[in-house]
């Protein structure tokens, strides 16, 4: 298959062959894994890279001086450079975390610590308190909502939430009204993990810049699926997880503008992030090390670098295009079935490849069970976005989230099954 041609079913099948987990039977059917929005499968190249590290270079990083330790450090830092290149950041702007959730919490606690007077003079710019406002949106994953609720509770600041419209797109008029001069931070997701909405980053950044607020981007559902350049998006911080982009579990990334990372007080403290420690006090290294206390996820960072090599070889633009096709096919197929309501906007230009839907009269758990019986793995529930589900009037939804290794045949199998599910549960109309 050529890098220049779009990904078709034949190409997808070739890619799929690189993923051992995709090659299995579930309940007597070949697995159709359509839950990549929760976590992606891993190609052999990633598993090999991790294993190769453990078998040949495993040692403490940034601590040892012996040969293995030096090699391990080099590979670990090469992985950081790889991630930085992938998102258009400088090397020292990439902080390893255990996942996107920790990355978002890191920012919230860093601000909390600055607000408690820690971090010295340079940290003052982050301090917030009563009268200050944090803004997020109604469409967020809990990981980009609760940390800000808690930050507000710790500091006395107020949390404002930009509402979404009936089609789950942001109410931009409300956004303009809510982002006032008291706003110190605006956090929003690039792409929704439920409604598939791709948020208007440039407009939101402009609103934040106009009032001098920091911008935090939840890039969990964009970085794995489309080309993302943090510099072009002009955000201050961005967070994403390795496991959703072919990488291992247990590794995530915080991007932060260098100047900000070097001013933000540390979050986790311990070994390898200090210059001098006395019994009274510790002096901290510059970023990114100041945020990387303790032994890091070394093998996982190296695995993530291999995942990026794989994604780069496939091409993010091709991935994005393919997923848009699969998503549109899914959307059309599902929307045509009586009693099924697809969440999110109908305009394909506003959507990622994800499709979440409600089957009238059949609980999402039962829908999921019916699909699982055919070897189709999709996710049911609130997908860690309770407020959004509440707003859209459903407790739980059924979510189909494809990746570039999925085929149209798999999408069609879902559509077929969805066409039968209401009858199976005794509903007819």
């Amino acid at each position, binding site marked *: 298959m050529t890098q220049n041609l779009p990904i078709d079913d034949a190409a997808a099948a070739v890619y799929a062959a690189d993923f051992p987990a995709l090659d299995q039977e579930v*309940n*007597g059917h070949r697995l159709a894994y359509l839950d990549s929005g929760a976590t992606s499968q891993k190609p052999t190249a990633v598993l090999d890279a991790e294993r190769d590290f453990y078998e040949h270079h495993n040692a403490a990083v940034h601590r040892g001086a012996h040969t293995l330790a030096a090699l391990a450090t080099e590979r670990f830092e090469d992985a950081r450079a790889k991630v930085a290149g992938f998102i258009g950041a400088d090397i020292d702007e990439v902080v390893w975390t255990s996942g996107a959730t920790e990355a978002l919490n890191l920012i919230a606690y860093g601000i909390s610590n600055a607000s408690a007077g820690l971090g010295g003079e340079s940290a003052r710019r982050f301090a917030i308190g009563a009268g200050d406002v944090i803004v997020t949106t109604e469409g967020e994953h809990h990981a980009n909502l609760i940390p800000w609720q808690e930050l507000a509770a710790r500091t006395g600041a107020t949390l404002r939430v930009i509402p979404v419209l009936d089609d789950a797109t942001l109410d931009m008029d409300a956004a303009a009204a809510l982002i006032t001069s008291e706003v110190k931070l605006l956090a929003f997701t690039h792409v929704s993990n439920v409604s598939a909405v791709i948020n208007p980053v440039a407009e939101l950044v402009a609103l934040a810049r106009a009032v001098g607020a920091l911008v935090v981007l939840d890039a969990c559902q964009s970085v794995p699926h489309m080309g993302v350049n943090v510099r072009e998006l002009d955000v201050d911080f961005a967070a994403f997880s390795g496991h959703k982009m072919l990488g291992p579990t247990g590794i995530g990334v915080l991007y932060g503008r260098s100047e900000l990372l070097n001013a933000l007080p540390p979050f986790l403290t311990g070994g390898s992030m200090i210059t001098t420690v006395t019994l009274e006090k510790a002096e901290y290294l510059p970023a990114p090390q100041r945020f990387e206390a303790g032994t890091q996820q070394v093998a996982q960072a190296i695995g993530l670098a291999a995942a990026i090599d794989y994604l780069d070889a496939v091409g993010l633009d091709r991935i994005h295009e393919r997923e848009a096709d699969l998503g549109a096919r899914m959307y059309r197929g599902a929307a045509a079935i009586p009693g099924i309501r697809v969440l999110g906007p109908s305009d394909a230009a506003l959507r990622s490849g994800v499709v979440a839907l409600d089957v009238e009269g*059949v*609980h*999402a*758990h*039962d829908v999921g*069970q*019916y699909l699982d*019986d055919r070897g189709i793995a999709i996710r*049911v*529930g*609130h997908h860690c976005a*309770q407020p959004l*589900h509440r707003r859209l009037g459903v*407790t*739980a939804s059924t979510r189909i989230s494809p990746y570039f290794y999925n085929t149209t045949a798999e999408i069609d199998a879902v559509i077929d099954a969805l066409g*039968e599910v209401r009858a*199976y*549960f*005794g509903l007819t109309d």
Partner: protein
Amino acid sequence: MGSPELASLYQQVILEASKQKHGFGLRPEPHPSNHQLNPTCGDEITLQLVTDSSGEHVEKLAWEGQGCSISMASASLLTDLTAGLPVAELPERIGLFRELMQSKGAGVEDDEPLGDAAALEGVSRYIARVKCAMLAWTALEGAMMESAAK
């Protein structure tokens, strides 16, 4: 069409119970009660333990909630099973039901004491659904604890 396994999960008695929801509707007056929630899907149930005047027999369970067919059917079948039972016998039945649910498809030696609720045996093959089936039963345990605490 579903597989035979799926058919044994969604038996007719279960699908019907999930629609009939015996015991649905909370009583206005206070009774020992408990609320349970399945955090994955947001399903929930509030259940009241209504006893006779002596407090020694179940008159009827009363509950409200929303959830998948398994959780609704389970609440309905639990209501059927417990009506008129001595309260003292409840822990044993709940224990037996839990054992059945954790049996991973193996069942229990004697499921007679569970009445129609034994039809939920198929759930035990699907670990992710055990929580759904247990929801009402856990709520009943909670209500009994509240009643004991008084």
